[in-house]
């Protein structure tokens, strides 16, 4: 005789928190992510204030047009992500697939553009060891890029095989999209601060 243990509060709200468990879980995870990126931004501040000179991103060859396009791409992906969740809330699975597909595509475009930027640097002999600025640039954008890849893996699963849950437990599936969206928006939010910090702030 086998007994299946049902995990509680994956679609209904816990009486004490007022949230389903995954939502509280992802917010706690995002809190740890804030500390991770906060530590790197603190490092940037320490390195910048401690240096006699500091480069401006454009002056050392960072492409502001490409970074601006990437910013817009991530903003579009955030909108399509939240629209995919809204589509499920209105029981429109077809729209969900379309919006989530665009979100994944935006992730691909972001990474391809970032790849071009990295390749251009490497071709010109610019590496993390070239300068303190480039060291923090590659560290922060590299870690952010890994987060984009992580989000794309989850989103692709939820667009493909994971979407079967819509047939069996639509409410739980909608909640999954919401928490995946919270993570994706956070990745967008980090880039919103990375973009001016690395590309636009004046040097000294």
């Amino acid at each position, binding site marked *: 005789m086998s007994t299946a243990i049902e995990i509680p509060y994956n679609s209904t709200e816990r009486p004490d928190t007022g949230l389903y468990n995954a939502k509280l879980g992802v917010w706690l995870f995002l809190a740890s992510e804030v500390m991770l990126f906060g530590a790197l931004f603190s490092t940037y501040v320490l390195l910048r204030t401690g240096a006699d000179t500091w480069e401006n991103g454009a002056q050392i060859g960072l492409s502001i047009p490409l970074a601006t396009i990437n910013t817009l791409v991530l903003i579009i992906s955030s909108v399509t992500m939240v629209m995919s969740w809204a589509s499920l809330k209105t029981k429109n699975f077809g729209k969900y697939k379309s919006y989530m597909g665009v979100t994944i595509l935006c992730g691909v475009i972001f990474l391809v553009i970032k790849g071009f930027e990295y390749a251009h640097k490497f071709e010109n002999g610019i590496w993390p060891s070239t300068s303190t600025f480039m060291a923090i640039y590659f560290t922060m954008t590299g870690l952010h890029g890994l987060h984009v890849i992580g989000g794309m893996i989850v989103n692709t699963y939820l667009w493909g095989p994971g979407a079967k849950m819509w047939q069996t437990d639509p409410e739980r599936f909608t909640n999954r999209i919401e928490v995946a969206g919270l993570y994706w928006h956070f990745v967008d939010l980090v880039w919103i601060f990375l973009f001016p910090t690395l590309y*636009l702030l004046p040097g000294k």
Partner: protein
Amino acid sequence: MSDTHHEDVQSHVKTYIKVFVALAVGTLVTVLASNIHLGIVLGIIVALVIATVKGSLVAGFFMHLSAERKIIYWVLVLTAVFVVVMMGLIMFTRQDQQGRQQGIFAVPQGHVPAHPAE
């Protein structure tokens, strides 16, 4: 945003579009502002203020923080406290280092350290 109904979602979609337009405009404004020679301090302040406004829009509307449960606000308040402490410690370290370089915290000449390592 746990008690979302069909009509609420429809009105939220309109808000998402407005937020998207605001974020796109904010991005262009921050790029244009960086081309104006505002000086180092003002340039940094302007760029970070625009980024903070954009970040607040993403958190408030896309992440639904404008209408969330209390426990999430408390989690974020606690996180913010830790971030401020972390940044503060780093800035104190920097000031301490500057103080030593400027001789403010220098050990007086002729001082015999209590410990050899001092």
